């Protein structure tokens, strides 16, 4: 018997005849060893198989992407005067010849049509919209929107959004308050684009939170869409959903909606400190002089973070009504408050810097260091 035969015989005996005679811990150990070896072999096969299939798939994707890209690139050469039906009649049979039942080909075709539709203006998106419809890809998108799986729903919503299929807005609106955050965000983003008559209807019914991330996305969509009719966002400032209020405040800030002034001032008494802080910030940006007394009235009731924002806003308004208050704040025990008060004094367009220089002559050594910092324009506040 050679070495390997001896080993195999030993292993065989260990797992058969001798197994029952071992103590429990050794038996368990032997079973774990066996399990690990089987698991390892399976994992190796799976990893190698996965690698091979991924490589194959990548090759296929590369081939079809190139092919479809070349075809769609030809659509770009047509101009406004060309007849859409003629263009479609030229391309449709060629596309139909492709193995559209192959999910890879179908996905690439859909993605490429969406990309071209998004990146071109004029005739191209019009032709692609007709092509999308003629290839029944819109029906697939609708099917996806009604799928059980949230990922598929998102795909469908994105397709409808990119291809601007407005008649899907009613199907999408139900997801704008879905408990799945990603689906909710995607639906809200699409709804704004697909419902030109009432794009912000979802804000009326929003009970779920619009997370900060969703606010970033919605903010980008709303502020970059030139076609969108922008309403007065103050009407949602009484929403029971704090995240709706926050989003609207950010939009009021961006669009400088002065008509919201009264509602924004009301929010100084809001229960949510983030909303109070943002309201104060807007008051400063809109330079609402009337609101200064309200901010001053609540100054001492708030934590430092809000106090800093109030000082900043008073500085932006620069009415001069609270100059003494600002000067008194530079003797606060908190360095940040001191510095913010100094910046507020400096903000006075008339002679802010001179005022600070005057204070510099009479104040403490610590304050002098801070004033130097504030007056140094190379340092951004």
């Amino acid at each position, binding site marked *: 018997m050679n070495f390997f035969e001896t080993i195999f015989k030993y292993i065989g005996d260990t797992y058969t005849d001798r197994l029952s005679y071992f103590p429990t811990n050794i038996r368990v150990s032997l079973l774990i060893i066996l399990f*690990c070896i089987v698991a390892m072999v399976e994992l190796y096969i799976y990893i190698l198989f*996965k690698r091979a299939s991924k490589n194959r798939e990548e090759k296929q994707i590369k081939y079809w992407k190139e092919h479809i890209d070349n075809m769609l690139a030809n659509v770009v050469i047509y101009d406004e005067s060309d007849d859409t039906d003629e263009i479609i009649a030229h391309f449709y049979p060629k596309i139909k010849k492709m193995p559209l039942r192959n999910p890879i080909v179908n996905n690439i075709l859909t993605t490429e049509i969406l990309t071209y539709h998004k990146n071109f203006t004029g005739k191209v998106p019009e032709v692609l919209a007709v092509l999308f419809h003629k290839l029944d890809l819109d029906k697939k998108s609708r099917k996806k929107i009604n799928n059980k799986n949230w990922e598929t729903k998102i795909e469908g919503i994105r397709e409808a959004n990119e291809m601007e299929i407005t008649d899907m807005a009613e199907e999408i609106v139900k997801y704008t308050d879905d408990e799945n955050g990603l689906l909710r965000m995607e639906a809200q983003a699409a709804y704004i684009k697909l419902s030109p008559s009432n794009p912000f209807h979802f804000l009326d019914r929003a009970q779920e939170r619009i997370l900060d*991330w969703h606010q*970033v996305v919605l903010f980008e969509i709303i502020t970059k869409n030139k076609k969108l009719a922008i309403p007065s966002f103050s009407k949602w400032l009484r929403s029971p959903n704090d995240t709706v209020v926050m989003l609207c405040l950010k939009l009021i800030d961006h669009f400088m909606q002065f008509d919201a002034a009264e509602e924004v001032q009301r929010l100084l008494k809001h229960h949510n400190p983030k909303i109070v802080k943002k309201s104060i910030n807007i008051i400063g940006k809109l330079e609402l002089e009337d609101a200064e007394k309200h901010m001053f009235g609540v100054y001492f009731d708030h934590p430092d973070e809000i106090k800093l924002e109030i000082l900043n806003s008073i500085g932006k308004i620069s009415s001069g009504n609270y100059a003494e208050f600002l000067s008194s704040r530079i003797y606060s025990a908190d360095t940040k408050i001191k510095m913010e008060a100094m910046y507020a004094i400096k903000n006075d367009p008339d002679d802010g810097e001179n005022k600070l220089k005057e204070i510099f002559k009479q104040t403490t050594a610590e304050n002098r260091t801070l004033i130097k910092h504030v007056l140094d324009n190379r*340092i951004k506040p």
Partner: protein
Amino acid sequence: MKEFLATFEILFNNAIFYYAMVVMASYVMLTLLSAIEMNGYMKKNSYLNYREILVSPLAPSVSVLAPAYNEEATIIDNIRSLLSLHYGNYEVIIINDGSTDSTFRRMFDYYQLEKVDFAVDYQIGCNDVRGVYKSKLPSFSKLTVVDKLNGGKSDALNAGINVAAKDLLLCIDVDCIVQEDAILKLAKPYLEEKYQVIATGGVVRIANSCKVEDGKLVEVNMPKNLWPRFQVLEYIRAFLMGRMAWSRLNGLLIISGAMGLFDKSVVIKVGGYDHNTVGEDMELVVRMRRYMYEQDRRFKVVYIPDPLCWTEAPADLSILGRQRNRWTRGNLETLWAHKDLFFNPRYGILGMLSYPYWLFFEWLAPIMEFLGLSVFIILVIMGNVNLEFSLILMSMVYFFSVTLSTVAILFEEMSYQQYTKGTDLIKLLLAAFLEPILYHPLTIFWAVQGNIQKLLGKNSWGAMTRKGFKENKIPIKTEQTTTT
């Protein structure tokens, strides 16, 4: 005597067996949790467009803090790389921690720095700042250089925190290669979690043998040297399995010293980095967590599986040993400083799960392994050991360890697949077989050595050098992994 030895052997075998069982069960649990977390993350993030944060004025503002000590060889490229990160609202603060070479002079000349009248608000303790500098060139307006007296990494970071003007702090090692979209990805959890996020970390990878151009990684390769290759495997296991699982449980105790994004307000509230430990990265996270519990505030510490930072791993055994020795001392110091957390229900998952796990399985495991091996050798010498049973027990641990590494490689393949070459994959799979025999015993030795040195009162970082991506000798400040 013979009877006593026989009884001792049985007890010893059982003790090792049951301890191994508990450790292995915990690893299996962590693997499952990590798989769930990874799957969720990958699914969710395939639908996201990070460009929106990049351009948005609503994105959180970030101060990048990078301490530099004697980095003259690479500092210019490092800063250039940090200034070209893909993010809108951020500043870069380089803290020259009293370098004795020409690090500061090089920065001063290249970036045309000038001293500004910056009033440093010493909210947290650090050595004196000699000056704060800004560039005269508008194209480098994001850059601030802080020149201070030498005080070590923690002290330099604290100085940077005192100067930082933004809401979040990205604390990094200046010589790491940071992925361009790192801030985007690390900042996102701050915008999407229901609870306040106090820290986020991403995966740190090994850059040995990788191709680096202008401070950017252009080609990923498996390290040619065997020791860094083992560390590749170790890092994949620690980050993709261990930390993702703890992130799922919201029980993470460590965010990489090489790269972590922190909520500045909480960092300041807890007093910044601790100067008195060599494991400052872990200690800070533990202190931030316990502060949040004490304030009764709901919070999260998040880990993301994206490879965001590449670092050069020690290829020399003596340097590697010093690094691991320091990690062990750092762990021990943190565990000792926060010993009141142990099974303390007031601190939720931190006290009831994370801390005990760290104590029993991260700190104690190498000591148990060392003791087990030592007793085994003594019993063999005395002839009082059942060799067959002992070998079966060891084989069980060996095969479990290889299987765990193979699962980690599977995670890597299913997620970011950084090693695209077939040969690299095979090298990694082979490393999984060799690691428990060649590399793991060394890590046990260094861990035990670290414990002994800590007991003897050693507190230094230990001098370390590495080759650098351009064959330059630069200091090493690498990442701490767990043994998972």
